[in-house]
C-alpha cells in the first residue's frame, strides 16, 4: 500500500506551475463586479439609507431635523394620504390593462405577421423615446384640450356620456379627469409593454403553431393553449415594467389631471418640494415602495413564471 501513496514520476521533469495565472484569474469576476457594485452603493444603497433615516426624523425646517425614531410618521402619512395611494394603484392597474390590450396585438403582429415591416414597426414603437417624456405628456394636453377635435368627436358620439356615467370624465371635459391621466400613463408606458411581449412572442417556435393546428386546434384555440401560455414571461415582465413606474408616476397626474386625480407620486413631490416636510415625504416613498414590492411578489407567485420555459 505504501507504493500507492507515492507520487507518480512526472511525465516531463520540468512541468510549468500553472498556479500563478489561476490565482489572478480567480479574482477577475470580482474586479468585473466592482464598477457595478460601486454604482449600486453610491446611487442606490446610500440614498436608501439616507431616505430611511430621514423618514424617522422629527423637527422643523428652521430648527433642523433629527433622528428620533418617530415611526408614527408612517402611520400618519398613510392615514392622511391613503386615497392617493389607492388611486395610484387603480390608475396604474387600469393603464397596465390598457397597455396589455393595446400592446399584445401589436407585439403579435410584429412577431408573426410583419415580415419585412418588422424593423420599421419596431422603430415606430421606440420613436416616441426620441422626445422627452414631458413634451410627450404636454402634447396629450393639446390632444385632449377642451373643445379640441377629439373631445368634440367623443361628445358627438356620446362616448363622454358613458364615461361621465362611469365617473371617468366630468362634464364636457376629458382633460383634468381620471380618463386623461390613465390615457397619459397608458401612452407613456406602452413601449415598455410591447418590447418584452415582442421578445417572448418572437421566441416561440412557429412549428408549435403548426403542430397545434395539425392536432385539431383552431387558430383561436392555438392562441389560447399555446401562444398565450408561452408568452407569459413577456406578459409578466411587460405588466411589471408598466405597472411599477406607473404607480410612482406624478407627471401625468400633474399635467393631465386635477387636484381630484392626485396620485402618491404627486403627494411625495409636494411634500418634498413645496411643503418641505421631508420625513413625511420619505415615509410616503417607503410605503409606496413596500406596497409595490408586496403586490409584485404576490403577482409573480400567482403567475408562476419560474415554471415556464
Amino acid at each position, binding site marked *: 500500500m505504501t507504493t500507492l501513496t507515492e507520487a507518480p514520476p512526472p511525465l516531463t521533469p520540468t512541468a510549468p506551475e500553472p498556479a500563478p495565472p489561476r490565482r489572478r484569474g480567480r479574482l477577475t469576476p470580482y474586479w468585473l463586479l466592482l464598477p457595478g457594485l460601486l454604482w449600486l452603493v453610491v446611487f442606490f444603497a446610500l440614498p436608501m439609507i439616507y431616505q430611511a433615516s430621514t423618514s424617522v426624523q422629527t423637527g422643523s425646517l428652521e430648527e433642523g431635523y433629527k433622528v428620533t425614531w418617530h415611526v408614527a410618521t408612517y402611520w400618519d402619512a398613510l392615514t392622511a394620504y391613503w386615497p392617493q395611494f389607492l388611486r395610484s394603484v387603480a390608475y396604474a392597474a387600469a393603464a397596465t390593462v390598457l397597455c396589455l390590450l393595446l400592446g399584445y396585438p401589436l407585439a403579435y403582429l410584429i412577431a408573426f405577421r410583419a415580415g419585412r415591416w418588422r424593423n420599421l414597426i419596431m422603430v415606430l414603437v421606440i420613436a416616441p423615446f426620441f422626445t422627452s417624456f414631458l413634451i410627450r405628456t404636454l402634447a396629450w394636453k393639446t390632444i385632449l384640450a377642451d373643445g379640441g377635435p377629439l373631445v368634440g368627436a367623443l361628445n358627438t358620439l356620446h362616448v363622454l356620456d358613458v364615461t361621465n356615467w362611469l365617473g371617468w370624465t366630468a362634464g364636457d371635459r376629458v382633460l383634468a379627469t381620471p380618463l386623461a391621466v390613465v390615457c397619459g400613463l397608458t401612452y407613456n408606458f406602452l413601449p415598455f409593454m410591447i418590447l418584452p411581449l415582442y421578445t417572448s412572442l418572437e421566441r416561440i417556435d412557429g412549428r408549435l403553431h403548426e*403542430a397545434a393546428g*395539425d392536432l385539431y386546434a383552431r387558430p383561436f*384555440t392555438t392562441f389560447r393553449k399555446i401562444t398565450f401560455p408561452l408568452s407569459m414571461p413577456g406578459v409578466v415582465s411587460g405588466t411589471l415594467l408598466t405597472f411599477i413606474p406607473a404607480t410612482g408616476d406624478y407627471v401625468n397626474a400633474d399635467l393631465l389631471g386635477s387636484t381630484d386625480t392626485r396620485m402618491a407620486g404627486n403627494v411625495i413631490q409636494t411634500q418634498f418640494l413645496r411643503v418641505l416636510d421631508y420625513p413625511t415625504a420619505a415615509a410616503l416613498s417607503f410605503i409606496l415602495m413596500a406596497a409595490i414590492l408586496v403586490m409584485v411578489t404576490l403577482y409573480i407567485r400567482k403567475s408562476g413564471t419560474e415554471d415556464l420555459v
Partner: protein
Amino acid sequence: MTNGTGGDVRLTGIGKTYGSFTAVHPLDLTVPQGSFFALLGASGCGKTTTLRMIAGLEEPTRGTVHLGDQDVTRLPPYKRPVNTVFQSYALFPHLDIFENVAFGLRRRGIKSVRKQVEEMLDLVQLGEQARKRPHQLSGGQQQRVALARALINHPQVLLLDEPLGALDLKLRRQMQWELKRIQTEVGITFVHVTHDQEEAMTMADQVAVMNAGRVEQLGTPADLYENPRTTFVANFLGTSNFIEAGIEGASGPDVVLRAGDGRLVLPRERCRTPATPGAKVLAGIRPEKISLTHADDADSVPEGRNRITGTIADAAFTGVSTQYVVDSPVCQEFAVYVQNVDRDPRLVPGARVVLHWNPAHTFGLDAAQDAAAGVEEAA
C-alpha cells in the same frame, strides 16, 4: 376503417411554386392505404413541401389532395384526419408529456383521455415519464412522444417529416425498427420523408425518389435498387458503376454493346433506351454483383459473363467485405465489393484483374444524362 382503395392518399397534379421558384412540379402520386410509403430525396428536392401539402400546412399552387374519396385540398390542417410527426418534434414545452399526448384528443372534445393516453404512452414505452416536461427527456424519448401525440388520434394517414434526423446512428436504427413495428401494429398509412436512402429502403414498402421537385422513380425498394430508371436513382440508392458503351446490335433477347475493345451483353428488357445500333448507352452495374479475378487466372472466368480488365487502385477492408476501386480503360474508379469468403492475397493495389459479372445484372440507361447525377446528394 374501410378496406380497398377507400383510404388511399391521392395527389393529382399537385404542384407548388414560390414566386418564380418551383418547389414541386405537378405530380401524381397514390399512397395505398395501410402502406409504409417513403418520399426520398436530398434536401430541397420538394419532399417536405409535398408532405406539408398533404398535412394542409402548405397550400398547393395547383392540383388536388384526396384522402379516400374526400377532397381535402382546401381544408385547413385542423380539419384533416391527418397527423404529423414534425422534424425536431415541435413538442409543446409548457405542457407535460401526458398533456402533449392528450392535446389532439382534448381538441376534439374527448373528456376521458386518461386511459387512451396511458395506453399510448405504454406503446411507446414512456409510461413512467408522463408527468415530465419535454426538455427533461432525451432526443429518442422526445421522438417517441411526438409519435404518440400523433398516433393517439388514429389518423387516416400519419406523416413523418425526417423523424429520425436528430438521433444518433444507433438510436436511429432502433427507432426504424420500432416505427416499422408500430406501423404494422396499428395499420395506419405512414408517409415518411427522409434523405437517408438506407432508412427508406429498410422501412418502406414503397419509395418515391424525388429530385428537383419531381418524382424520379416510384417502386419497391428492391425494384428501385435493381432497376433504376435514371442515373440519379442509380447513384442515390446505393452505388452504381457506369460504362459508356455503343450499341452494336441485338442478339436474341439481349443487346450487345461495345465498350473500349471489349463487348458487353445487356438484357433487352433492362435497357431503358431504344436499341438502335450506333446509339450510346450507359451500362450500369452494382458493385456487389461483380466478381474479381486476378489476371493470371483470367482463363478460369466462365464463358458468357461480361468482363472487363483493369488495375486495382485501392482496397479498403471493411470486415464483411472488401471494397476495391479498380481503374479500367472503360471506366475510371470502378467500385467492386467482394465478400470476404475466400480472400485472394494477390488482390492488392497495383494488381491486374478481370472484372466479370452475370450479364443479367447489367442495366442500360439513356446516355444523355449525367452519369454522376445523385452522387453528391447521396453523400
